């Protein structure tokens, strides 16, 4: 290998890989393992505006960088704020969850294809969220409710393991109190005193009345949940191109250079994470793709 560093022309940058410094201005514990951070950019480092369903790469310095969806309100991006909800599953997510107000973290993005809402105009929206999957769906719901008059029925089904694991319970309550929105929450393991639904999300989904030709569905959660629900909806006649799912694969760069997030023809950081069901249904059927 060549060692000598002879001629030095202009130094190379890797702009796309260098995170912008953001400050944590709010640290809110959602559940025992999940935290929502509100981030503000440092001077002159604000990133472009995000769209619902997009994600950023968040860095904990010296620990690592991971993809995290944006869970804030797309209509409230003043000062360049970002709101992100992180579940602690490993070293980097744990370090981010520990980031108290005032600390700094690195942010790149926003990246990826988000939820398509324009194509659902005048139709019904069906949102199905499992666990942490509610986080990337929240900006979508907020966006839709902010333009409520453009849509027909808006239905949200959210599943969680237990009440303690349920994300944004107050927010869900507030949505549920709206007359123009139907919200159903189901728990795998009900707590004593829980009067709501119990069991997998497929139960309420089957019972939800839909007009397939008017419905656009938005799904996010564990891959197996996505598959079962999307298949059920397709079987009930919702056109696969109107079922949108947000998928997860390992991501190291978020910008299409690292090759990790492939799902067959897709680089999920670019053509995803939100994909149309017709583009991925067959792929998810294949084991270990």
């Amino acid at each position, binding site marked *: 290998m*060549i060692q000598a560093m*002879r001629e030095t022309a202009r130094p190379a940058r890797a702009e*796309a890989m260098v995170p912008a410094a953001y400050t944590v201005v709010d640290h809110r514990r959602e559940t025992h393992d999940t935290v929502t951070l509100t981030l503000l950019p440092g001077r002159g480092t604000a990133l472009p505006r995000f769209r619902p369903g997009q994600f950023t790469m968040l860095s904990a310095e010296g620990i690592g960088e991971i993809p995290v969806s944006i869970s804030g309100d797309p209509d409230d991006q003043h000062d360049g704020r970002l709101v992100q909800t992180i579940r602690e599953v490993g070293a980097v997510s744990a370090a981010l969850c520990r980031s108290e107000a005032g600390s700094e973290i690195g942010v790149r993005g926003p990246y990826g294809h988000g939820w398509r809402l324009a194509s659902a105009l005048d139709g019904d929206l069906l949102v199905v969220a499992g666990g942490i999957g509610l986080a990337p769906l929240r900006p979508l719901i907020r966006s839709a409710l902010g333009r409520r008059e453009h849509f027909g029925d808006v239905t949200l089904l959210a599943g969680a393991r237990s009440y303690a694991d349920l994300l944004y319970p107050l927010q869900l309550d507030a949505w549920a109190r709206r007359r123009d929105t139907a919200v159903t929450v189901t728990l795998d393991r009900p707590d004593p005193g829980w009067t709501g639904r119990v069991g997998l999300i497929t139960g309420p989904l089957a019972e939800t009345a839909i007009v397939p030709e008017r419905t656009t569905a938005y799904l996010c959660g564990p891959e197996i949940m996505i598959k079962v629900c999307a298949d059920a909806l397709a079987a009930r006649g919702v056109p696969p191109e109107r079922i949108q799912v947000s998928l997860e694969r390992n991501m190291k760069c978020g910008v*299409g250079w690292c090759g*990790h997030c492939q799902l067959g023809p897709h680089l999920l950081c670019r053509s995803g994470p939100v994909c149309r069901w017709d583009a991925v249904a067959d792929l998810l059927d294949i084991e270990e793709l």
Partner: protein
Amino acid sequence: MLFDHPLPEVIDRAGLDQLVKLLQADGYTVVGPTERDGALVLDELAGGADLPDGIGVETGAGHYRLRERADGAVFNHSAGPQSWKQFVHPPRQRVDAPEPVRRLAFIGVRPCDLAALAILDGVLGAAPYPDDRYLARRDQIFVVAVNCVEPGNTCFCASTGTGPAAEWGYDLVLTEQEGEGGHRFLLGTGSVAGEEILDRLTHRTATGGEIREARRAVDDAAGSMGRSMPETDLRGLLNRARGSEHWEQVANRCLACANCTMVCPTCFCTTVEDATDLEGDNAERWQRWDSCFDPDFSYIHGGAVRKSVGSRYRQWMSHKLSTWHDQFGTSGCVGCGRCIAWCPAGIDITAEAAALAEKERTR
């Protein structure tokens, strides 16, 4: 565009040394094939004398040997263990600190490898998120290509449409000739920078005979490739083969050692790791080559997506020949044959493609 050039010029073996010197004088670090530990590797050349005169190679599946040539040819060898990728997309790089860029001159880039550079340009250099580091390095490279007149046993660029003639993407292009008239190189230019260098080289104009001979040699090369990809729609074939039981069969032979991805001139995958010193200050972020054969490559919380070796081989081959089209608009394979030669188990991508095609035909 050797043959379209109004009149190709000719330099002799000494002219090649002179070319190396001129490039060095212009501040380039000249990199080219040279012998080390029983293979032709790509390394910095002190001068033209480091080029492998008279050394040929004998390749096969999982097989590579140097051999002495009867002639003094410098560039008639193929499928070394390295590719130019290592210079434009190095095995390890820090991504959170600027890095000085060297001016490199590549000598002896074969057409398949020119195509590979073009593919990397499309992967790493393309909008909306170009890799500035890659582009900065790429920007500083002077390319001396060679037309291929002697394909090896593992070569199949004719069937991937990426050789044996260098079409574009070079500053200078050489065609090596031996025999009557001595050892010489026809020289064409592909850029202003190339023309400037040519002006300073001792050269003469090529004769009609020499040009005709060069054209014939390259044409012959197209017909004498050691291997070929089956003539079928590979993109569709691999698409349809996702569920094939063939992957299991390959898995019995595959070592999952990642050699194919490391030697491939277009495989670009990387991973990123943070590092700190013991005090915990001074964080650094490093990118290094990764491989779809690595167990952690597809890791997401809860476990890897591709656990079996078969699924990893399927990922690799499908990406090269099929899904690369979906992602980057071209095939990811340029027919250089490195993955065949440098697979310790001798697994051959052309043979596996043929086997898949055959299975589909007989089903």
